[in-house]
């Protein structure tokens, strides 16, 4: 899972994943136009996303279409849920102490 975190740590990469999720499959060229970076840079990001299972590609004629694969986010989601739950309990303990003194 730290691999998924490492890949998601880059904000441009997150933005690319968000666009694929929201707008559907796209080519590297179109993503480059939308994000405002070079096609090579987008291709690097897409490869990293694919390496950890967050994106997949298929050829359609002469183009390669990339799509988001959000199943790989399940572990991240579980981590977020657990950690958020832990902080809720810790802050509740903090509040009880403050509000009782």
């Amino acid at each position, binding site marked *: 899972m*730290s691999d998924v*975190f490492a890949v998601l740590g880059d904000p441009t990469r*997150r*933005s690319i994943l*968000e666009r694929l999720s929201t707008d559907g499959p796209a080519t590297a060229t179109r993503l480059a136009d939308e994000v405002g970076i070079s096609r090579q840079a987008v291709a690097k990001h897409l490869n990293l996303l694919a390496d950890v299972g967050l994106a997949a590609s298929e050829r359609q004629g002469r183009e390669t279409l990339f799509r988001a694969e959000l199943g790989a986010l399940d572990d991240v*989601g579980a981590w977020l849920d657990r950690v*958020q739950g832990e902080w809720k309990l810790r802050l509740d*303990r*903090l509040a009880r102490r403050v*509000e009782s003194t």
Partner: protein
Amino acid sequence: MTDVHTDAEHELLIDAQPEDVWEALTSDDGLDDWLGEGTEVDPVPGGEIVTPDVVSDRPRRGQVDEVDPKRRFAFTWWPEDDHDDRSHVTITLVPTRAGTLVRVVERAAAATSTTPAPAWVDWMWRASLVSVRAQSHALVRG
């Protein structure tokens, strides 16, 4: 737009002044209460942290990153048996007319990017966290 993020966030409004919340957050007695008895924190940058962390029931160690009295307490910590599982925690106190808002963000160290993020991507404070997993399920259904 779907938000993808890696920060676990939580916030709570406490009916008290920031100095009282800070005292509970960082004093020996206060730390014993919210993290667990026997918690030791050396409250200076680089200071050591040792805690039983009763909430997760997994003892942790760590290091203080930043101490800005009554405003911000930031540290890095990990389960004592897994140094690789490091995360960065930032606790911020925001005074409001209704009390002190305590905001916590925890981010896995593996998710820390060296590229500076544009403000709209990174600092999305929310009252409650929408789980990434819930979003991905919603997308599959929708």
